[in-house]
């Protein structure tokens, strides 16, 4: 499964290293390994000896109007230098704000506006990160439960400009596209169609990785909880994305109620089957 990876979470730390199933890569949340020393960092080094690694951040808060956190960027740079990951990514979101005279970090992926000002801010911050790391950053599209009035750019247009002008890549989360459409009131079929149109609007060659995950329905909202198998409309959009973009590294994310490792591997095999049916030679 050279294109497929899974999110490597605490319940599977030991089992993965013992069984070493064939995977193209594993992905971890960068911040979980920021500690200067201790068992977690050694564990990551051990995993790196067996697997290609993708560092996926949730805390750079690239869209924060009050600026990036230099401490965070330095910790990330140190981690990157230590484990030499295949890819480094984070989100098009904000989290850092001034509260009561101090900078606070919301530790969530809060939505940014899609306009020229926020594009300029993202460009500045992505450049800052790429300069410090000396490598390309992938930036992921969000699932958002709120938006800002007065957006002047469509979201794909925003990412096209961001990738074109900064040299960063897009981490395309197809689950997030479906979740956003469902929360707009779409049926699953409509959501898949809207998400596929989003993919069509993205500049070819800019996507560096695809994320797949499950969502949860609540009475008010569909929540991107990464707590179940990938849903049918998301598989549909994934196949569409592969047809349009080619066989890209793809990840099964599962963060809530993490199941047996075999379940994640089964989901990864399903994703591999999607790659294989479309590109039998390259898969």
């Amino acid at each position, binding site marked *: 499964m050279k294109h497929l990876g899974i999110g490597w979470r605490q319940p599977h730390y030991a089992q993965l290293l013992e069984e070493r199933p064939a995977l193209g890569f594993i992905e971890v949340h960068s*911040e*979980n390994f*920021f*500690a*200067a*020393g*201790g*068992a*977690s*960092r*050694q564990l990551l080094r051990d995993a790196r000896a067996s697997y290609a690694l993708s560092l996926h*951040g*949730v*805390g*750079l*808060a690239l869209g*924060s*109007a*009050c600026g990036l*956190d230099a*401490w*965070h960027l330095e*910790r990330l740079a140190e981690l990157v230098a230590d484990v030499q990951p295949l890819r480094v990514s984070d989100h098009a979101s*904000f*989290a*850092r*704000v*001034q*509260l009561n005279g*101090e*900078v*606070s*970090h*919301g*530790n*969530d992926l*809060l939505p940014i*506006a899609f306009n020229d*000002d*926020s594009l*300029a*801010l993202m460009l500045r911050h992505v450049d800052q990160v790429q300069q410090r790391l000396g490598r390309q950053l992938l930036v992921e599209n969000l699932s*958002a*439960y*709120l*938006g*800002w*009035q*007065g957006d002047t750019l469509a979201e794909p247009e925003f990412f096209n400009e961001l990738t074109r002008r900064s040299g960063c890549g897009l981490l395309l989360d197809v689950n997030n596209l479906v979740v956003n459409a469902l*929360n707009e009131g779409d049926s699953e079929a409509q959501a898949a169609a809207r998400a596929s149109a989003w993919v069509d609007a993205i500049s070819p060659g800019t996507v560096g990785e695809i994320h797949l995950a499950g969502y949860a329905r609540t009475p*008010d*909202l569909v*929540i991107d909880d990464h707590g179940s198998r990938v849903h049918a409309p998301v598989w549909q959009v994934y196949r569409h994305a592969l047809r349009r973009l080619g066989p890209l590294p793809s990840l099964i994310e599962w963060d809530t109620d993490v199941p047996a490792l075999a379940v994640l591997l089964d989901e990864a095999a399903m994703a591999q089957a999607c790659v294989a049916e479309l590109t039998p030679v390259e898969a």
Partner: protein
Amino acid sequence: MSAAEIERQRQLVQAVLGGTAEGPWRAPAGVQGGAARGLLAYRLNAAALAERALAAVFAQLREAMGASEFVAMAWAFWRWRPPRLGDMGEWGADLHEFLASQPEMEPAWLDLSRLEWARHAAERAADASLDADSLLRLGDTEPQLLRLRMRPGLRLLPPNSEGQVLLVWRQGWRARAEPLAADQALLMARLLAGADLQSALDACLAAHPDFDFSAWLHEALLQQQLWRVEPIGEPT
């Protein structure tokens, strides 16, 4: 980016932190998409993250408090002292201060909050093995010109509710905590404060004339507490 955008983002975070699961919902101007349901989603996520992050560090405190009280405490603590960093493993140092500010707080809970944070910090501290060569300085350099450096993460806690002074340090990958005798505690406090070895020993022997430095040093090496012996003035 404009001051208006900084303020708009601040107001959104403030709105997420601003109430309970029932409200109030004061979304900032410019937000669209069903403010109440969106804010609720972010608020519930933050509250769940608060509980999860603290439970990973303060497992014994959670057990002592009970799950439901711990959940409420975690959210109250977030609102009192929100995380400053994007690494949730760095959040919780102030939990002792927060609990101490609450009325009729159980002394044992205060003890646990301080101890479990110290253990957590020790297990995240930078790796450092003994600098064995540096021990030779004990034989060839005057003690007033030497400083004993403990391994990263080692902490001496203030007396707990039972009057014990606990030393917390990392042994291998795991943190350990042990009560110290008064003479050991005094020496360790002086060493951690940066005193030279002679001054630390003088203070200790003045209060505890029977203190045995050789035995202490043997234990400090055996227990993986001592890092290195360095000459005064050497860059640290």
